[in-house]
């Protein structure tokens, strides 16, 4: 098991909601990244979590930027640091709205240009900072303030979009498994080039569950196969952590859905589509892992 450093970069004075996954994720990301790091943050929950001027709860430089431009700002920052011989980690820490919706063009551009940076999307599946409006990352059936009858469309497949850019490293993670997240951030930062980590971030007020259940919700997401943990190093796929077991035998998706209020009005059709989508994703990953194993054997 990895030795998690004692040094804290997220101080105990954040403005996060009780049970916030994002601040937990940020805590482990910064522990893995260390002092020589700059965080680039577009409008998202972390804009608030970090505290109010002149105070800050973050002990590395934090650069707050326009909603659509995290990856673009990181591009300039990374190139400028490299130009003067600095190895400083440039990490975008962005919500799902700032990533799959308004920020996707900048992300796509920065990935395509081979920018030496790490982009972390913490995904609470809605515009939580502004009070839970739908985003492209909101799953089918979820009730938000702009989908009062539940969302009718699929969650945008961000990972497939990122994968199409051939990043040197990409992974998924979940706030309920911080050591897995820590290891993935460590690994990502050891590789030059564009890196991406997509972290599921259960949100108590947004998803309507008690704040002490944050970890439980994250675990249910993974064990039910609603969220899959894996990484790709130069394309090589590895299923990681609890998803290895979940892909063989998963817990009922209903357990995950019933533990939160946002799916209360989900129809049986919505639930069937959620199940189908999860099954399809698992099958695709399993197939790809098998094909890669067979290829490796042949070689």
């Amino acid at each position, binding site marked *: 098991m990895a030795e998690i450093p004692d040094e804290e970069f997220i101080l105990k004075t954040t403005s996060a909601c009780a049970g916030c996954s994002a601040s937990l994720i940020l805590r482990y990301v910064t522990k893995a990244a260390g002092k020589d790091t700059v965080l680039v943050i577009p409008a998202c929950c972390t804009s608030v979590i970090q505290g109010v*001027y002149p105070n800050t709860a973050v002990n590395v430089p*934090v650069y707050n930027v326009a909603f659509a431009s995290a990856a673009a700002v990181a*591009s300039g920052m990374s190139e400028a640091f490299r130009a003067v011989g600095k190895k400083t980690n440039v990490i975008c820490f962005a919500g799902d709205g700032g990533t799959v919706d308004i920020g996707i063009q900048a992300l796509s551009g920065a990935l395509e240009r081979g920018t030496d940076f790490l982009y972390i999307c913490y995904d609470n599946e809605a515009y939580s900072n502004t009070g839970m409006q739908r985003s492209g990352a909101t799953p089918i059936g979820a009730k938000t303030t702009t989908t009062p009858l539940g969302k009718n469309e699929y969650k945008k497949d961000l990972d497939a979009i990122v994968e199409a850019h051939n990043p040197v490293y990409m992974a998924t993670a979940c706030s309920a498994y911080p050591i897995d997240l820590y290891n993935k951030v460590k690994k990502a930062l050891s590789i030059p080039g564009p890196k991406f980590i997509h972290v599921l971030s259960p949100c108590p007020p947004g998803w309507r569950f008690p704040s002490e259940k944050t970890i439980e919700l994250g675990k249910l997401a993974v064990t039910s196969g609603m969220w899959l943990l894996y990484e790709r190093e130069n394309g090589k796929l590895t299923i990681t952590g609890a998803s290895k077991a979940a892909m063989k035998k998963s817990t009922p998706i209903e357990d995950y859905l019933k533990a939160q209020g946002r799916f209360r009005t989900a129809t049986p059709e919505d639930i069937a589509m959620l199940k189908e989508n999860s099954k399809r994703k698992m099958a695709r990953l399993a197939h790809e892992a098998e094909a890669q194993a067979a290829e490796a054997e042949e070689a």
Partner: protein
Amino acid sequence: MLTFSTGNKAVATAVKDAKTVVVAAYPITPQTEVVEETANNVASGALKARYIPVESEHSSMGACIGAAATGVRTFTATSSHGLVYMCEQIHMSAAARLPIVMANANRALGPGWNIGAEHTDSMSMRDSGWLQAYVSTVQEAYDTTLMAFRIAENENVLLPVMINLDGFLLTHITQPMDTIDDLGDYLPPTNTPHAIDINNPGGYGTLTPPTEHFKFRHDIQRGMKDSVAVIEDAQADFAKRFGRTYGMYEEYLCDDAEVVIVAAGTLAKESEVAADILRKEGIKAGVLRIRWLRPFPDLTAALKGKDVVVIDRDYSFGLGGILVNEIRTKALEAFIGKDGKANLPFSVIAGLGGQEVTYDDIADFVRNRKSGGELWFGVTE
């Protein structure tokens, strides 16, 4: 070194000579040559910079923000739709007090598609906190780009600077250009006091309560005010070292003029020919060319007691020509006579979308001037 150059290439050459460290830019007509030339300069090693071929203008200014935040010299170029596409970042870069330098090839905004010269693009950014210069020759484009870095990076300013050159009419014309072989210490190394420092970690642009927000905005105005002395010093030192003199505005035959034509960019140069023609007819005409729109110069003394004709290659719908309104506001006392009667500027709207405006046309504007009137050149109602 004396050479020939287009306006675009003049800008790119100055960016090279200034030893810029990061250039992030997206090509757009008629600015494209600035980007191509810079990419070539980086590829050939003539400029040891990082060139970031961004996917949009919103991202070009985003990347410039990121680069300048680390304290390195940063440049971009754009035009028209590109400029307004990056509008959010224009405001944010100024409020973040980042000394970014940008060239803007002035061009009309659609629809319909029109790639001709017009100043409405940059003038619509006049309230952002950017300093803005309007140049009229290739040499001036080169010289002003160099000065822009020194002005923007000055610790009393720390605001971005936009150099505006008329699309095609200046970006694409070729004129002689004298480049500076050795800048000496005219451009000192960047020393951004608020550059990101991992040993002094801070939150940049965090949630800010109104009291502090208010102070920050007031400080932008202080920087803008202080920039006048910095610009004057940068121009005086430039003249001393390199022999070419520039002011906040340029006057041509204004001393004894009874009527002064005020304009920015290439139209003002054209107006000098018109003034010569008018003088032959016995009309004592002069030209005042606006070089710096922000900070806006005090023109009261220069225009006092004279008839004034302002040519705007821009318009603020529902108000009027932008230049003429700025002048009316900032030089109001110049237009009130001893008898208390007002002699207001004659406003001419001309050259929008690259409309051809000749010196003969400009001479006609002067001949037909009406105090306080407005003429849309070529439009019959």
